[in-house]
């Protein structure tokens, strides 16, 4: 631990007495490191997959046994570890800072770190041994080594421990502050994790009650359709568990970083309550083409899915308002002048602004996926990875990278290494992903399948050559961008000067419309949790009732 970091910790303690304690800081730092390790492994796999499309064998490039092994590693490290780790880090930090006190349980926070480490370690070993080449969705009856499912359990438990911690911390704070509004940063972290706590129940039931016993041989047969229903119960909400920590940065840090103010405290609370309510009862839109589910239930989920687009639209408005506020304060004039007046030379702001621009295409393609019959055009084609590399791959990942550009200096006490490289990194990622997604989207619209080793496929169609070329070029650019990011990170941690100024999280302070103007009922988190449960029951009980009895008919099959 560098001396400036110790000094910084001490200074933070001076300003916010007993808030950051070292027993709680090391699990946060540790998960950040695990997050970076997962990004490195997963990112490398991604580059190899992009190159496979132009005939460079992934097996030769990486030494793995198959394209699909690489794809499984890519999915698990990025969609499960990278994202969960960031969520844990930001939720812990921002809750501490919001309540101005440490989290209620140091043991649970350290437990979060250990379970994340165990999940990443065990998962990586099993995947690298080629014992779990089932992709991160692990659809039964493809059967992986039981330790793979255990690794997934560890990762989810890591987030549950943090949820428990956040709830306990809230209750203790509430006991000391019976009438105050929940501090906005802590409120956002709490609602995000309650949403995920409810959402992860689908996965938990699927793995603990059905898949794990079956893979251990305790039962012989499983029901793949039922398992999919349970998986996608969590599977759509998980994207909001990925997205909401990025939104936390856009709402809580970006306004300060651009010199503006958050538009409205109440509107922000409302947005996160809407996510709590509507993230989960939408899962069937991933199963429009499943035979075992009725059209009526699929239609209900369609409507609920369109509802969940609203809080993102509100976010777009609120964030733009904060940006415009900051841009005009910086002297920007006219209709668009404020855009140029934003601090683009700040690598953290640069990356996040670019990710917001790219996110528009991600949202549009998401609506297309959700549109019931339109889904027949795009389901399981390359259109889908085109969509989600714009959303989780950029809106989330590039925002996480942008946050790292101030968070890693903050936590380590070192100056950011080569900010100009960091600026180039941001542009390269955004440009690269647009080219990559262009290739995937057009390939998908020309019937190219996803999750397929296209470079080795026995079939091909005329438009795919161009699509593959664009994917490979865009993916390579993202890979180079990733390498630049790691150069900056390693440089910051090991080769950089110590920081001399002591700073706080770049937390937005006074919104334009403050908490006293927002509805108090928004703070009744327990009430909203119950409403969320009612909505989940409304969306899923009829689904399950009309589906049951289950068809436990499928034995395990090893397919690689």
């Amino acid at each position: 631990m560098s001396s400036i970091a110790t000094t910084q910790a001490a200074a933070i303690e001076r300003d916010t007495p007993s808030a950051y304690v070292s027993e709680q800081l090391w699990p946060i730092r540790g998960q950040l490191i695990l997050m970076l390790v997962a990004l490195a492994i997963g990112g490398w796999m991604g580059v190899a997959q992009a190159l496979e499309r132009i005939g460079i064998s992934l097996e030769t490039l990486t030494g793995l046994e198959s394209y699909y092994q690489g794809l499984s590693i890519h999915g698990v490290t990025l969609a499960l570890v990278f994202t969960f780790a960031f969520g844990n880090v930001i939720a812990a930090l921002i809750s501490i800072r919001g309540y101005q006190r440490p989290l209620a349980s140091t043991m649970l926070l350290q437990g979060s770190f250990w379970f994340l480490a165990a999940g990443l370690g065990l998962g990586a070993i099993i995947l690298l041994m080629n014992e779990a080449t089932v992709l991160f969705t692990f659809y039964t009856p493809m059967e992986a080594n039981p330790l793979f499912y255990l690794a997934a359990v560890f990762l989810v438990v890591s987030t549950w421990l943090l949820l428990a911690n956040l709830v306990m911390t809230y209750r203790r704070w509430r006991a000391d502050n019976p009438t105050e509004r929940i501090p906005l940063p802590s409120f956002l972290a709490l609602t995000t994790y309650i949403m995920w706590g409810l959402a992860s129940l689908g996965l938990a039931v699927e793995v603990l009650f059905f898949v794990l016993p079956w893979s251990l041989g305790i039962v012989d047969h499983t029901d793949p359709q039922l398992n999919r229903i349970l998986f996608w119960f969590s599977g759509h909400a998980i994207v909001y568990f990925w997205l909401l920590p990025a939104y936390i940065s856009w709402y809580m840090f970006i306004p300060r970083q651009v010199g503006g103010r958050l538009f409205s405290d109440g509107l922000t609370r409302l947005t996160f309550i809407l996510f709590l309510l509507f993230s989960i009862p939408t899962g069937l839109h991933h199963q429009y083409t499943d035979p075992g589910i009725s059209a009526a239930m699929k239609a209900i989920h369609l409507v609920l899915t369109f509802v969940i687009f609203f809080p993102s639209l509100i976010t777009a408005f609120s964030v733009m308002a904060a940006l415009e506020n900051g841009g005009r304060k910086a002297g920007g004039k006219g209709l668009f002048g404020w855009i140029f007046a934003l601090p683009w030379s700040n690598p953290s702001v640069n990356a996040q602004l670019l990710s917001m621009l790219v996110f528009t295409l991600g949202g549009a393609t998401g609506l297309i996926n959700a549109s019931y019959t339109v889904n027949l055009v795009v389901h399981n084609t390359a259109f889908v990875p085109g969509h989600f590399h714009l959303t989780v791959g950029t809106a989330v990942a590039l925002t996480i990278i942008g946050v790292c550009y101030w968070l890693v200096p903050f936590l380590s006490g070192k100056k950011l290494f080569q900010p100009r490289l960091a600026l180039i990194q941001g542009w390269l990622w955004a440009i690269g992903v647009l080219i990559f997604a262009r290739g995937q989207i057009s390939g998908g619209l020309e019937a190219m399948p996803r999750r397929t080793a296209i470079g080795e496929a026995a079939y091909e169609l005329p438009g795919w050559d161009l699509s593959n070329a664009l994917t490979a070029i865009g993916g390579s650019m993202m890979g180079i961008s990733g390498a630049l990011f790691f150069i900056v990170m390693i440089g910051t941690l090991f080769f950089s000067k110590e920081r001399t100024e002591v700073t706080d999280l770049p937390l937005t302070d006074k919104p334009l419309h403050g908490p006293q103007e927002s509805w108090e009922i928004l703070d009744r988190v327990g009430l909203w949790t119950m409403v969320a449960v009612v909505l989940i029951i409304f969306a899923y009980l009829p689904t399950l009732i009309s589906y049951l009895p289950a068809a436990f008919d499928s034995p395990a099959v090893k397919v690689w």
Partner: protein
Amino acid sequence: MLLSGLGAILVSVVGAGTMLPTPAGRVPPEEVRQTPPFDNPGVREIEPGKYEAVIVAQIWAFVPNEIRVPAGSEVTFKVASADVVHGFFIENTQVNAMIIPGQITEVKQTFDEPGEYLLICHEYCGIGHHNMWGRVVVE
């Protein structure tokens, strides 16, 4: 904006008759090859202009993998899996369905234009997944 989107979807379903796959029966994967109609996969004419294509999806092939019909035919595809989850996707048509072990998938498509339509498995089903394909030949 969203309401008009929902309206457009309604038009596609009610007006154009586009349907998502819905429950069409069940068959355990271990019994698929012994259970009618999957014990005799192939293409049959059931009425003039209407055909039934019964297909077994297995690792890593569709059986049969070539479906020949005259132009203008309405084909009802009945597909079941003998092992794991497969995809069933025919380019340039509305046929895009999952084949889930235990469930029967039934989708209809009218082929007006003569030509060759690629049929692909688009859900990862193992190491030979990228070789699992077929075609619909409309004459």
